[in-house]
């Protein structure tokens, strides 16, 4: 959120918390919610994009006909690993070696 020392008060905030600039969810990174991180095995990935379809965030990004994970936004729900038909995605505990 804002880096200003003092956050704005009710007198200056917009009415009803309406945000007139769209796309504000991009400012709010949710990657640190994650307990498990999905790791894609690029060799196994067929680029079918089922993970891209299922990802609720969306934190799956297409790259060279394969996929990679945007860890700034991935919350670690594990749906991609569950849905991957070739088991190319593994959930690994954050901080684990």
């Amino acid at each position, binding site marked *: 959120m804002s880096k200003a020392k003092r956050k704005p008060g*009710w007198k200056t905030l917009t*009415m*009803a*918390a309406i945000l007139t600039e*769209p796309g504000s969810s991009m400012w709010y990174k949710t990657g640190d919610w994650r307990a498990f991180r999905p790791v894609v095995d690029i060799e196994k990935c067929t680029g079918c994009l089922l993970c891209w379809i299922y990802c609720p965030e969306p934190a799956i990004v297409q790259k060279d006909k394969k996929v990679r994970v945007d860890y700034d936004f991935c919350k670690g729900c594990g749906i991609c690993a569950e849905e991957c038909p070739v088991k190319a995605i593994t959930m690994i505990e954050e901080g684990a070696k």
Partner: protein
Amino acid sequence: MKKAIGLTGDEAVAYAAKQCDVDVVAAYPITPQTIMVERFSDYVANGEVQTEFVCVESEHSAMSACVGASLTGARVFTATASQGLALMHEIMYIASSLRCPVVMGVANRALSAPINIHGDHSDMMGSRDCGWVQIYVENAQEAYDSVIQAFKIAEDPEVLLPVTVNLDGFIISHSMEGVEVLDENAVKKFLPRRRAELKIDPDKPITIGPLCLTDYYFEFKRQQEEVMKKVPDKIKKVGKEFANLTGRSYNVLHTYGIEDAEAAIVCLGSTAGTARVTAEKMRKEGKKVGVVKIRMYRPFPTEEFKNAVGHLKAITVLDRACSFGAPAGALCSDVKTACYESEHRPKVSNVIYGLGGRDITLTDLEKIFDHALRTAETGVVEEPVVFAGVRE
């Protein structure tokens, strides 16, 4: 030329909504719905209005659809009662927080259990803190007049709050009266099309209803309280404009005979009429009694109320709902809070009455007035809360 037609309270509300050229009505069409939307659906079926009528599957959905429609800048109306209002409760907070100027007719009725469909204020009192402006009417004429004014109040760019127009279930909602109605063009002139500055628009995307946690939520609640403070003056202004048009003037509260009174009854809705007739009779007998009808219950007209009752010796507040376990009924609690810091304040007693549609008669009210006069004389409130008209 003045035109009077026979309408029930419900029909008067529907007729007013029709003349207000409402864009969207979303309503659940089965019990506990009222004749308000039934009659309105006739207008839709007959092509008398251009309204989009959304038949939803519950009152929860009705209010949700109203919120969505209102956010597109539309003029939105709905109606409900009793359990239906209770089911809307959650979304009513969202309507007010997102500043949706929806107008809703509420035929005030009891809440279950036991099952009862008759008039009392339990439903609206259950949602009294939902952030809506709440107007209580005394008869079908006031219901008609107040709906037209409600849109003007709600849609004022400095207000943008939803408004309920509360009419006592059956006593007003189902009783037919002669209602003086305005010419359609006169209503159009009084109430021009809504012009929403901020609205849902695919060409100009905005975010409505974002997550606000410990760091921002409180500020937005404070904003809502601030806008409530602007409402009394708006209601007075719109009431005066309406008086210029019709000769019927409206304020935040209305009084009868209190200038020289010693004791008064404070109440909401249709009971005010019965109390006034009782007071008229008693005043002819030389008893100095008066009536204060609270028309705008939320925001509570604290200053106006203090000015009105400051000189009285005793007031009895009538509550048509029970706030179980509370020191007094909801209206009485507000009255006491409003008066507490005043140097000269009347003795206040509370009567809980009329639950589940039980009638209150002239004789009942005369007894209540007599009791208030005794308190005025002795300065002693014998019983702070009395349940009137209940069998022991």
